[in-house]
């Protein structure tokens, strides 16, 4: 080969046709190579089979009568029929509050000139459509529930909840600019108020169904977060005794199973209280065990957030002359917590799922135990309906967990975690 031959510039390759269209998408994503094609076929067969079996189970082979008949038991346990309006009122109140808080947050965001990367532009129906697309698992769940009801009560409840949410969203922006703290107080007071309101007909210990799971989770989350925060601060404290106490607590509770702690609360707690005092209710014991357990995990998550914050933030706050408390509350915590939203919400999702353990250990009639109970009912016993009952239970939990996790991802995008 001579030097001129090497130097010779090859003729330009003919321009490839621009890759686009469905054929090209299939080539790139499904049949990139021979191995890829094999994977596509195998995974496709698995997917088709799973979907086929799933659809057949839902529409043909599954015997859903057991769920339809016991729907109320699954949802609210043995709550009296005449008092069901209390639940509708409670749900509407919650929707009203969430709507108001959302409206208020949007208003504050606009007023302070922060941009929202997740904001939907366009007319009002676009917003509604985007909300529906965002919450599709929840809407699917509600639709399945409504498809099985026989009375008009649940329909009215759903309508009331939607209306309350919309009213709240429209009212929220008219709150005065500094009502954030008031909203938090209203949330705490409202939570306590709702419990008192709902326990008028039957006591909390007799609650059941998904209502009990939600109650346990709400109580656990709102208690374990402050405790975990304190423990995280304690573990980072300069005071040796406080640090030592926090470390011991965290490592102890992270090293043992929640189920065993719950058994402990069930079997052993009365022995540690004075014999004269009344035994604390099972629900209370469950909440305390769940709170103590999850607080240790929350503490570690928050500690991670605190550690991820550059020292300069604290130093800058000190340079501005802020007191240690103000430095913590105004500068450090907001940033640290923002960084750990995904892990925190993940922990809260775990807590929601763990409420089933509480019921199993304590013998409370929660959603999962209802499924156990209905399978043994006269008329359904011995027909092998465990699968149907469990599938329904798992669907409800799935809707709750996936909604929480999707909303946390959205919140993360909204707050711009990792982008600034």
């Amino acid at each position, binding site marked *: 080969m001579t030097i001129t031959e090497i130097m010779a510039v090859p003729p330009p390759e003919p321009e490839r046709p621009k890759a686009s269209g469905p054929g090209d998408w299939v080539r790139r*994503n499904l049949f990139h190579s021979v191995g890829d094609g094999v994977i*596509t076929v195998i995974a496709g067969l698995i997917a088709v089979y799973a979907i086929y079996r799933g659809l057949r189970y839902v529409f043909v082979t599954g015997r859903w009568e057991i769920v339809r008949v016991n729907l109320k038991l699954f949802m609210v346990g043995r709550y009296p029929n005449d008092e069901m309006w209390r639940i509708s009122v409670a749900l509407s109140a919650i929707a009203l509050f969430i709507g108001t808080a959302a409206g208020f947050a949007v208003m504050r965001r606009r007023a302070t000139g922060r941009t929202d990367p997740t904001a939907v532009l366009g007319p009002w129906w676009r917003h509604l459509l985007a909300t529906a697309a965002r919450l599709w698992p929840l809407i699917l769940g509600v639709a399945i529930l409504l498809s099985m009801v026989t009375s008009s009560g649940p329909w009215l409840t759903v309508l009331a909840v939607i209306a309350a949410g919309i009213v709240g969203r429209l009212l929220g922006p008219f709150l005065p600019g500094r009502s954030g703290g008031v909203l938090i107080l209203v949330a705490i007071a409202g939570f306590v108020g709702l419990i008192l309101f709902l326990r008028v007909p039957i006591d909390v210990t007799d609650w059941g169904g998904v209502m009990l799971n939600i109650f346990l989770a709400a109580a656990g989350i709102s208690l374990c977060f402050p405790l975990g925060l304190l423990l995280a601060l304690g573990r980072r404290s300069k005071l040796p005794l406080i640090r030592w106490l926090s470390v011991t607590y965290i490592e102890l509770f992270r090293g043992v199973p929640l189920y065993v702690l719950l058994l402990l609360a069930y079997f052993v707690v009365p022995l540690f209280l004075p*014999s004269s005092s009344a035994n604390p209710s099972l629900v209370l014991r469950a909440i305390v065990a769940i709170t103590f357990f999850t607080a240790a995990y929350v503490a570690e998550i928050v500690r991670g957030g605190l550690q991820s914050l550059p020292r300069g933030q604290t130093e800058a706050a000190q340079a501005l002359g802020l007191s240690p408390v103000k430095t913590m509350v105004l500068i450090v915590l907001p940033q640290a917590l923002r960084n750990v939203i995904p892990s925190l919400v993940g922990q809260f999702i775990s807590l929601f799922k763990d409420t089933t353990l509480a019921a199993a250990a304590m013998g409370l009639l929660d959603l*999962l135990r209802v499924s156990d109970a209905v399978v043994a009912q006269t008329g359904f016993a011995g027909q092998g309906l*465990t699968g149907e009952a469990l599938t329904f239970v798992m669907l409800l939990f799935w809707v709750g967990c996936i909604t929480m996790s999707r909303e946390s991802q959205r919140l993360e995008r909204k707050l711009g975690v990792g982008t600034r």
Partner: protein
Amino acid sequence: MLAWAFQVAVVTVVVAVVWYLVGNYQENAAAKNLTTGFGFLDQPSGFPIPDSTFRQTQRVRDALFEGFLNTLRLAVTGILLATVLGTLIGIARLSTNFVLRNVARAYVEIVRNVPLLALVLLSLSIIQTVFPPPQDTWDLGPLTVSNVRGTSIFWYEGDNGKFLVVVVAAFIAIAAVARWRRAVADRTGHPARTALWALPIGAAVTVVAWIVVGLGATAPELDGRRVTGGITLTASYLAALLALVAYTSSHIAEIVRGSIQAVPKGQGEAADALALSGFQRMWNVILPQSMRIGLLPIGNQYLNLLKNSSLAAVITFPELTQVTKLAVATRAPAVPSFVLLLLIYLAMSLVISLIVNLVNRRLRIVER
């Protein structure tokens, strides 16, 4: 000064609360004539453990040890299977193949968002419907015999110590081959092909060691409706294992995905530039580096799996928690039993986190 006063105050309150509770306990124990010591461990247990040789005349101590072994069986097998499955699914989540990616995503998004306890109950119910009743037992040759009561598999027979010797011998052989192949590859530049060499040699060493130490073997046999020989994995064990592996692997998959995405893009591009195959790129370049990122979170999942194995008690698999429940229901005192249970779990957790931390120290990039 103020800081010290605050600390002393907090500690005083904590000590006072503990003091108060313990005082109550001693008072109650005295009033109700409860045992507070650990002497009950040497008493006859008074309950049999299903599907085992444990009889009710044996000591509580032995029952707990049996439960401890069952917990280990569940946790160790579960950790191994969940790691393999979780890693595969985590990689599949990032595949360029549309179908594979979404099948993996559906698996993760569904399994991760349902309660483990529901999965445990569901897998028990699945096993009870899928496997045949004893009269129609599946006889799959000398390796596996299976029906709704359980699945019996080929297993060793004889001294546990001898089996351990065999396992260690095989492990040493494989490690030595791997080391030798690496040295050859470094010296000559030929591909190491470690797996191709190590697996046959390891298998050969296992067989030879098996015969040399005089270890027996037992295969399951179908005798009418009864299954004899082999080792039986009961339906409750399989159900708990299935649920634990499914649940934990979905969590591990998300960690693996995150840690692969956290490996700098340039590493993958460099592997492509060296014309490595897809497998080489993943196995030699990406995975080792993502291991470093994902190890501690995956270690946390191992701890969770160990702790979650206590849920097998709900379907009466006789692991540690279930045995303790049985003991307390029979005649063992509740407080010492549960304290012991907590301590055992705590110790096991510490061992796992110690191992994870040691591995982490080895994997960590040593900076100046």
